[in-house]
């Protein structure tokens, strides 16, 4: 606490009050724990533990085939989860995403199979439908003032009804095996293409890091040390390299995984680097502050609900793609809960304003790993539900504890 002051004139070469304090890695971790800014580390460590446990119970767990399957498996629910992250960042909840996914799948099948609309236009129409659904729900929440919880609970029921209505009388509509939609989750990149995509990501990241560091240095701002930058670039290269190598040793990188990760990366950039993303964090952090800062809170809220429903509709398309059909069960069952749980396990705070798009990816990996491990061990879904519940609870407890840590730290 530097409450120096009094009458001494400000010392001319003001030792930048803002220079980064360099401290030991342990110090940083302890500090973060205390201040409640944990970032993604708990979930990454949790994921590693889960992998070690399942691998030791069944050595088929970490095989290329199983990991490939898992990658495709998580894409649909993971995509829905990206939308859920946005809503959670606002400090709200969307309970309708499962049903909206179901409506998306049903509308796609009805349009393309029953009415002969081309699959690509049908996908676009479904995405627009999703956006409209979200806009409606967001409007009722933001303008009429009904709690989001209730609006989307009504949506959960209502859109399920629409889904059943659309699928009547068949109940299930099959989509062609060789169509555009089916290919979304049944295509693998060639080995070369996989390496190229992986390399591009690493190069883009490294270039951004270097350029940013240079610009900061030129502006006279504290820059991250060379080693820190290198460690991060090499770390990313190792993770991506290992992923591509493993997936290539089976059938190649699944397109569905590229789509899912691509959506996560884009949303992360939107959230961290654009004015719109900053507005979402501001509304989630302190609505009153956002309003007084001149932000159009209602518009931000409506747009986020629109995005969430659009992601949900796209998730529904991926579900239909994976099972070659839209059925009454698409988007039902535990879809909603898994999508929300993934976001929360991925470290997105239920209290709003904290978290990252990568939470959807990490949380989906955790849940996908548990599901896949249980499947290999031939355990009932009863066990899977209970274990998933325990992991979710752990994530929420961590969230609440770190919130308390922050509160205590804030008053310190």
């Amino acid at each position, binding site marked *: *606490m530097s409450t120096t002051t009094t009458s001494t004139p400000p010392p001319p070469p003001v030792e930048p009050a*803002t220079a980064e304090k360099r401290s030991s890695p342990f110090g940083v971790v302890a500090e973060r724990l205390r201040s409640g*800014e944990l970032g993604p580390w708990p979930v990454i460590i949790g994921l590693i533990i889960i992998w070690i446990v399942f691998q030791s119970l069944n050595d088929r767990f970490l095989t290329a085939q199983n990991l490939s399957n898992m990658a495709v498996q998580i894409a649909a629910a993971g995509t829905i989860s990206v939308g859920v992250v946005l809503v959670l960042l606002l400090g709200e909840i969307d309970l309708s995403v499962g049903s909206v996914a179901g409506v998306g799948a049903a509308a796609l099948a009805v349009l393309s199979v029953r009415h002969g609309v081309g699959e690509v236009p049908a996908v676009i129409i479904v995405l627009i439908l999703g956006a409209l659904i979200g806009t409606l729900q967001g409007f009722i929440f933001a303008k009429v003032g009904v709690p989001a919880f209730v609006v989307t609970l009504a949506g959960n029921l209502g859109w399920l009804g629409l889904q059943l209505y659309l699928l009547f009388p068949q109940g299930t509509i099959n989509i062609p095996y060789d169509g555009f939609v089916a290919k979304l989750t049944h295509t693998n990149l060639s080995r070369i293409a996989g390496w190229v995509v992986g390399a591009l990501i690493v190069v883009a990241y490294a270039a951004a890091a270097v350029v940013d560091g240079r610009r900061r240095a030129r*502006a006279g701002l504290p820059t991250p040390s060379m080693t820190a930058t290198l460690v991060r670039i090499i770390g990313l290269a190792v993770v991506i390299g290992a992923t591509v190598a493993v997936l290539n040793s089976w059938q190649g990188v699944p397109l569905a995984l590229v789509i899912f990760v691509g959506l996560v990366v884009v949303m992360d950039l939107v959230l961290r680097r654009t*004015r719109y993303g900053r507005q979402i964090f501001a509304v989630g952090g302190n609505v009153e*502050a956002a309003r007084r*800062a*001149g932000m159009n809170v209602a518009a931000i809220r409506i747009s986020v609900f629109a995005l969430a429903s659009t992601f949900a509709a796209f998730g529904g398309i991926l579900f239909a793609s994976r099972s070659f059909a839209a059925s009454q069960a698409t988007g039902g069952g535990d879809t909603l809960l898994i999508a929300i749980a993934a976001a929360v396990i991925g470290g997105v705070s239920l209290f709003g304003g904290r978290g990252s798009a990568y939470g959807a990816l990490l949380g989906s990996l955790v849940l996908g790993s548990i599901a896949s491990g249980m499947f290999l061990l031939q355990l009932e879904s009863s066990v899977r539900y209970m274990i998933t519940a325990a992991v979710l609870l752990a994530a929420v407890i961590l969230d609440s504890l770190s919130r308390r840590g*922050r509160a205590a730290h804030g008053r310190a």
Partner: protein
Amino acid sequence: MSEQAGGTTRQGDGGPSPDGAVLSLAGISKRFGAVHALSDASLAVKAGEVVALVGDNGAGKSTMIKAIAGVNPADDGEILWEGRPVTITKPHDAATLGIATVYQDLALCDNLDVVANLFLGNEVANGIVLDEISMERRATELLDTLSVKIPSVRTPVASLSGGQRQSVAIARSLLGEPKVVLLDEPTAALGVAQTAQVLDLIERLRDRGLGVVLISHNLADVRAVADRVAVLRLGRNAGEFVMAETSQEQIVEAITGASESVVTRRQARVEAAEAARDVGQKRQASDPQEQS
């Protein structure tokens, strides 16, 4: 509703509003139903001057600030900005004129870092991409010129102390290059050291040539930084004083309403005792208020 008071102001000791005031208000009235929150009240602030606005709870201080800030415009009255009559009906009007307001609840986003909070709603961007580098540079410069000490401009505001948060809120109000800053109880809920920090900051605002209107219940703080004190009582002006020529007792008297209150009676007793002692004739050994 109430009578327009024109440009003239009725005041206790300070005379008419000082010439060259950046901002002056006259005949301001505001009613909330049956409550006259402000009746024919006036206030003026010059560049490079700290005016303290004091008064008991419910005296109308916050109402006055909200009228100036355009949050809750007055029903009646005249506002002069650099001598020209202006109307302020919404926060944007005040901001365009060059009036910045720091409310008691600071309206910071705890989850965002200092830079993001400073530029909240005024982000610098190239196209749609935020220009973090120029924001961080300007934030660092601003905080350095104000000698605000924080560990890093990239710390989330949640982990700052109360004084640091207040400093960030005040610094934010300066980004729009205002000429007048309104501070509603900036030192309430702060400890001694943190209060000193904020008072220093207020002095630096004055030294930069800003007009500062400071609401405070703490007369020690007011005494420490204010050049003039304007007192409101029950929505009316109850005196205006030049700080250097005024005793705390006079201010208290104006706040509470003369000779009526416990406070003034107690002071009268003390003063009487002191006067008696000064004369030196009848030294009363039993005087209980010997000290001070």
